[in-house]
């Protein structure tokens, strides 16, 4: 039986995108493997969330117990361990998220099961499950095959697929918590929101960087608006920090900070060697500069040769629109 158990992820009363995204992967795979998808929700007061997950058409199992008020890796591991024994799923699928990575490897060890982490796609053929994942920050793809086992563990990378439509009506079934008592080793204390304003650009996922092309600080709101739209932090080249447009601690370059965001949008930055050296860790680079010869284009993934002041307002507008 090729059943797939998908662990839906939620936090602070809301489901996380990855839960929906997995529903774009699991059903097809289940079909190939000749099984069905079961969604698992662990938490306390899960009714509403269970309904939302059920809308993808698969059966939703809910472990609803005050013990699971907050995420706890140890408890999740225990529940999953018991359910694997019970349900014998062919695949256990979770998100490659702060939750998933916090207990799946331990589970793999405990149950002596194979694990492939941060999978971008899965394929089942000729009785073998193969996962594709990336190495070297996406420069190399790897195909990893599972040796035959009762259960395969996979964690799915966020954002690799669009969530499917959710208009079906799956069944919701509560199961009793296999865990009766609280576990002593690890306890949840609290959530702390990231401090606003105190931005460390070396930790930013998205950076909007401006350079000399900003011309004067009264143009800054334009950039701020764009940054807000895409939840980006603002950084600058030495010219921009020198001019006082951007705080010094947000300077990118050999004499500033080395950053490694997923997306780096460089605007009005020519791309001197010392600047480029500070942003080489960026995964995707977008460059907007009116000089077609600017060296920044040699490191860009997407390039626009134009006046940033003509491009940015429209870009912000369009992004807002697309993001809804």
């Amino acid at each position: 039986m090729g059943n797939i158990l998908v662990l839906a992820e939620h936090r602070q009363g809301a489901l996380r995108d990855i839960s929906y995204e997995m529903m774009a992967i699991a059903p097809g795979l289940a079909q190939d493997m000749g099984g069905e998808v079961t969604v698992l929700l662990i938490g306390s007061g899960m009714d509403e969330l269970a309904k939302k997950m059920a809308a993808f058409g698969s059966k939703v199992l809910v472990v609803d117990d005050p013990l699971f008020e907050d995420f706890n890796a140890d408890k999740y591991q225990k529940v999953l361990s018991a359910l694997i024994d019970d349900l014998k799923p062919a695949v256990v699928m979770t998100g490659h998220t702060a939750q998933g990575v916090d207990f799946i490897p331990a589970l793999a060890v405990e149950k002596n099961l194979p694990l492939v982490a941060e999978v971008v796609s899965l394929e089942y053929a000729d009785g073998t499950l193969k996962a594709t994942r990336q190495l070297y920050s996406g420069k190399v793809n790897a195909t990893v095959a599972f040796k035959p086992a009762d259960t395969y563990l996979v964690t799915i990378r966020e954002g690799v697929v669009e969530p499917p439509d959710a208009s079906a009506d799956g069944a919701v079934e509560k199961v009793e918590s296999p865990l009766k008592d609280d576990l002593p080793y690890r306890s949840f204390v609290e959530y702390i929101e990231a401090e606003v304003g105190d931005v460390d650009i070396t930790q930013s996922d998205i950076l909007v960087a401006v350079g000399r092309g900003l011309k004067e600080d009264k143009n800054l709101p334009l950039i701020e608006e764009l940054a807000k739209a895409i939840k980006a932090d603002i950084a600058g080249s030495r010219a921009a920090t020198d001019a006082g447009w951007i705080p010094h601690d947000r300077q990118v370059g050999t004499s500033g900070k080395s950053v490694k965001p997923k997306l780096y949008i460089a605007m009005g930055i020519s791309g001197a060697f010392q600047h480029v050296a500070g942003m080489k860790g960026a995964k995707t680079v977008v460059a907007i500069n009116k000089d077609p010869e600017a060296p920044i284009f040699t490191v860009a993934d997407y390039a626009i040769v134009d006046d940033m002041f003509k491009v940015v307002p429209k870009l912000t507008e369009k992004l807002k629109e697309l993001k809804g």
Partner: protein
Amino acid sequence: MSTESQTFTEKYDLLGCIQCGRCTGGCPVTVRADLNVRRFVYDAYHEEKLEELARLAEIWDCTACHTCAVRCPKGLKPLEVLLGLRTMIIESGKVEPTVRDALQSVLLEGNPWEKSRAARSDWMEGLDVKIAEPGVPVENLFFVCCTIAYDPRVQSVAKNIVGLLNKAGIDYAFLDESETCCGSEVFTLGEEGLFEMLVEDNTELLNEYTAKRIVCLSPHCFTTYKTRYPDLKAEVIHYTQLLEELLREGKLVWKGDLQKKIVFHDPCYLGKQGDVYDEPRALLKSIPGVNLVEFERRRERSLCCEGGGGKMWVESESKKERLAETRIKDAKALEADIVAVACPFCVLTLEDAMKGLGYEEEMRVAEIMELLGEFVEA
């Protein structure tokens, strides 16, 4: 003599100072930063104060232009007191991440730019470059410099000179990716241990090649090899010295016509420290059509561009006008079309300043070798 046993006072001969003030008086960064190098020489006498001094931000404002050392009437090197304080910080390990990464990159990859050692000779691709072989005598062994080797903006210095050497038909060779940072910036950042290691390793490496001369493309390497590598067997020169020689011997002929007003900026490491002033000027003058003009502050009085002293990795807290900007404004006042330099750091700082001032349309910053490459006779 072991330096370990020396006190700070002995090591930097602090008691030799007569507090005349020439060091601070000549220091170019005093107009920009609160750095008074004389006070450091005075205060560093108190061993118990050293840690406090080392924590002062201004020790990182020094550009290691060496003006203080050149001017000191007692033969002291005031800047090295600052470097000694930097050493204390470096050896505590608690340094700016940028400095940390640059130094670590020198240790692991032989360059401060966090580039892979294997890529050091990538600039040679497609060029007919002669590579040195250990033990095979060569007249002129070239040392490229980390910045020129990796920074596409100044790679043309190396590329152009290869073409020119091939045409002049002289005996030369370049090192392959075994070339390792000369340590100029490592020294000025205060990483004494690493610098000592580089001196040891580079001396061994360079002496393996039985070269008559080591020709450096960067004045930083030039001065460092000349003054801080006591056991190098070969004579160390800057490429402008070699080319000027070739020019005199008639081995270089220029074509075309450069109807431009050029002003030459004396790099501190070439001029003040290396005493090379005339050769770069002779090269520029030799290009047909060139009208060479001079800065008021030229030669021994040249204004530092703030490119040295590890400043590529440490930003000053000062908001005042960068010296490179002052320099570009002076060039503008002279109505110069081209600011010519013979140092990769000067190219970067001055070009940055020029762009910052918005003179891109009417002015150009160029390494001499960039210009010569454009005018060499086929």
